[in-house]
């Protein structure tokens, strides 16, 4: 259980790489001769012209990062940042990653630096000689400072609270890698999808109560995200009511009794990967009376979609909306 | 010595037993008549306690037989044996939290059945036993709170409640004050006469044995060295061989009992 919470936190912190369903961007191959990208044509041609101006960026811890040129050897220790890196076309520069950075598949080629739960593997990182390390919100400032004290360049990124912040997160990584143009396209296409969905949902007035189950190690008291999480944000935006919002805390346990009292209309099983199914849920003591169980509104849900705060959050928005309001999507 | 033509109640024939490889008692034969007290003496390690353990079923004999009322007891279950032989141990390992009455009631274990529910007969016997041993006024007191002498009497009461023809006592006067020692032995004599019990009593003090037992059996190195009246057994020669000390004997002018005293 602890494992899962940690994983989710890690994922939330890293910005994701855009998934295959995004139309425009293709991975950019930049020549190792350290070129700075200024203008990149829309339909993806490698090569940018060298510019002498250094890159200066302030990370979310307030630390100023100065790069002489776009980063070429990048380590990402959070899945969200891995996904964002790939989405802006700089994925081939990834030389090391944490073991939870599994999307996209290409990321698996980079060196696996382990799970980060026992601390950041500083020696392995030094051995890879990166010029930039991307770290997400899960890492404490002290841990980041340790890396900086060793002369490493570390960019720390906070989780986004909404889509606008997500766009900023993507764009700032693009600045660090000199791929701003690709990023702008990525962001605008994401924004288009979101606006389209917002419009579709505008007239919806039946808002179902949604229980998003993160973890059921203790099936009588499962874990669910509370208010302030991106999951809650997406569910609410998709015209659903996140049950966890009524509870205190970000990752909270809810008792079977409370669930019976609240009687959610829909259950999203983000722990379906661990063998939880509609049948096993219905078999839990007392749960057979819950509305979602009675009406069969139980859906498996990919936990990484909404738990890794990267471009795939938009996929998540679309998926949740389709589950909650299927009538809007019948074509 | 009380001989009345009837066969002895307790008959021990060529009894041997060992602890592993060590031979504890070898080829012991002796009888106890009804209404008789046989004193069992000998130095420590001679086999007195072992003999009592074998007789009471705690230790298995390696050879020989034991007959009570002419019946072989080696095949008896613990319950059956407990209805034929009762033991009065030394007052050492006691369930201190029990009351005197509860402790004496445990003497009826062999009659009580698995649940331990006493019938009227059981309670009657218990009351009688406590009265005989003068512990009835202590009935509700906890064992751990009464004196050593009283504790020993309670154990005697428990054995009496067991209602057996044969009674074994294992050095009952050890650890007791002189007054209690004397009283206990007087009590035993009285009960034996009154109830017609057959008693085998291991003892330490040779003069006390002389005053209490009808016959004396001397054990040394696991074997029976002598058996007979106190005068016959407590001789200079026997004591020298068994205890390795020199003694002299005399007859007490007032009690007429055969006494010994060391001359070293």
């Amino acid at each position, binding site marked *: 259980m602890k494992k899962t919470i940690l994983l989710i936190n890690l994922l939330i912190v890293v910005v994701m790489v855009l998934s295959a369903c995004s139309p425009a961007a293709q991975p950019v191959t930049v020549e190792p001769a350290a070129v700075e990208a200024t203008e990149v044509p829309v339909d993806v041609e490698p090569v940018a012209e060298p510019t002498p101006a250094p890159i200066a960026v302030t990370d979310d811890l307030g630390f100023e990062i100065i790069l002489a040129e776009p980063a070429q050897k990048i380590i990402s220790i959070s899945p969200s940042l891995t996904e964002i890196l790939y989405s802006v076309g700089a994925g081939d520069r990834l030389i090391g990653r944490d073991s939870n950075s599994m999307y996209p598949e290409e990321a698996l080629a980079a060196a696996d630096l382990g799970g980060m739960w026992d601390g950041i593997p500083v020696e392995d990182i030094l051995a890879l000689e990166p010029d930039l390390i991307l770290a997400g919100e899960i890492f404490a400032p002290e841990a980041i400072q340790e890396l900086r004290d060793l002369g490493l360049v570390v960019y720390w990124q906070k989780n986004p609270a909404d889509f606008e912040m997500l766009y900023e997160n993507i764009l700032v990584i693009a600045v660090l890698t000199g791929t701003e143009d690709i990023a702008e396209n990525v962001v605008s296409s994401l924004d288009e999808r979101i606006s389209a969905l917002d419009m579709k949902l505008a007239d919806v007035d039946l808002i179902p109560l949604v229980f998003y189950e993160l973890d059921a190690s203790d099936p009588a008291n499962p874990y669910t995200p509370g208010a302030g999480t991106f999951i809650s944000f997406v569910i609410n935006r998709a015209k659903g009511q996140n049950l966890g919002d009524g*509870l205190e805390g970000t990752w909270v346990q809810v008792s079977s009794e409370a669930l019976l009292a609240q009687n959610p209309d829909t259950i999203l099983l983000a722990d379906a990967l661990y063998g939880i199914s509609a049948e096993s849920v219905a078999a839990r*003591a007392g749960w057979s009376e819950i509305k979602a169980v009675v009406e069969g509104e139980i859906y498996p849900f990919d936990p990484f979609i909404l738990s890794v705060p990267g471009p795939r959050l938009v996929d998540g928005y679309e998926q949740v909306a389709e589950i909650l309001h299927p009538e809007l999507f019948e074509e | 010595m009380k001989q009345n033509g009837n066969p002895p109640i307790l008959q021990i024939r060529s009894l041997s037993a060992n602890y592993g490889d060590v031979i504890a008692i070898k080829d012991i034969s002796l009888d106890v008549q009804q209404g008789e007290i046989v004193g069992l003496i000998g130095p420590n390690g001679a086999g007195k306690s072992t003999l009592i353990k074998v007789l009471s079923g705690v230790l298995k004999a390696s050879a020989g037989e034991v007959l009570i009322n002419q019946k072989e007891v080696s095949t008896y*279950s613990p319950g059956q044996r407990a209805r034929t032989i009762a033991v009065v141990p030394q007052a050492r*390992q006691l369930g201190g939290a029990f009351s005197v009455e509860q402790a004496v009631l*445990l003497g009826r274990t062999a009659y009580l059945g698995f649940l331990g529910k006493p019938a009227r007969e059981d309670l009657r016997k218990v009351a009688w036993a406590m009265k005989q041993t003068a512990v009835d006024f202590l009935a509700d007191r906890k064992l751990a709170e009464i004196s050593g002498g009283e504790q020993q009497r309670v154990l005697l009461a*428990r054995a009496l409640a067991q209602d057996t023809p044969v009674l074994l006592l294992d050095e009952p006067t050890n650890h007791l004050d002189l007054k209690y020692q004397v009283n206990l032995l007087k009590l035993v004599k009285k009960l034996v006469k009154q109830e017609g019990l057959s008693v085998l009593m291991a003892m330490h003090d040779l003069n006390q044995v002389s005053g209490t037992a009808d016959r004396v059996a001397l054990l040394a190195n696991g074997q029976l060295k002598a058996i007979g009246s106190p005068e016959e057994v407590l001789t200079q020669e026997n004591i020298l061989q068994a205890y390795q000390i020199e003694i002299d004997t005399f007859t007490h002018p007032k009690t007429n009992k055969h006494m010994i005293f060391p001359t070293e």
Partner: protein
Amino acid sequence: MKNRPFLVIFILLGLSFLLSIALGAVTIPPGNVLKILLNKLPWFELEGIWPAYFETILWDLRLPHTILVTLTGAALAGSGASFQGLFRNPLADPYLIGVASGAGLGAIVVMSIPQAGRYLIPIGAFLGGLGTIAVVYRLAKVGKIVPLTTLILAGVAIGSFTSALTSFLMLISDEMILQAMSFLLGGSTVTGWEPIAIALPYFSVGILLLVLSGHSLNVLQFGEEQALQLGLSVERVKIFIIISASLTTAAAVSFSGVIGFIGLVVPHIIRLVWGGDYKKLIPLSILGGGITLLISDILARIVMAPSYLPVGIVTALIGAPFFLWILRRAKKEVFW
């Protein structure tokens, strides 16, 4: 109070039971609690207005949970009292002598076999507990007796070993089984009637056998030698008690995990107030164990609501000081 132990204990048990049912994450007015419960009986049709989920909560969640907690506490205290009597050792307790941990290992082994159904869990626990007590007994025996020190040493050693094996098995298992096993870490949040249906035969048989052993345990208090001389078939009785106590412990551990202190403290408290006669001590400990675990479970649920503490922490926290207090009071009286 001293003269009517069963009356007092039954009243306390009833109160604890009702309290446990009345409390939970969702507030249900006590009046409704009583009405809903009584309506389940054929003679009652009480009127009242409440949402349907009140009934689900009470009947499907709280009632089976309360029953399981009661049975678990009863089993632990009963086997604790029996082990104390059997080994004539005031520190004997199913956890300290390793039986509970061994039962836990047995349960985990069964759970790690996917084909084995939940019905086999108590059997695994029983075999585990029995195996452990056999090993501990062998190790601790010195000549004919089982001294205090060696028993606890052997129990702690074997208990630690089996606990370590259990943890190891859990670590190398995959997620699904991990979930199934998570409750074994001392939580009684397993819900529903299924665990009760599975474990009830073991609970009832075990507890009944222990109650019947009261007289034999009394006789054993004078030592095995005297017990034999008094006519008790000592070896048979020892085996009988060991099997019964292991069975009872296994039932408790199967679905509630390893909970310490109940088996140690409850018999002592009963003993201090009502004496050491095992014919009374065993049944009173059984009932007292139910009360104690119910109260501990209630505290575990409400102290840090909506989170809950593992009940084992609560039993240790309230058990230890309470025992010390009673011990001070009763120092004058002999209770052992």
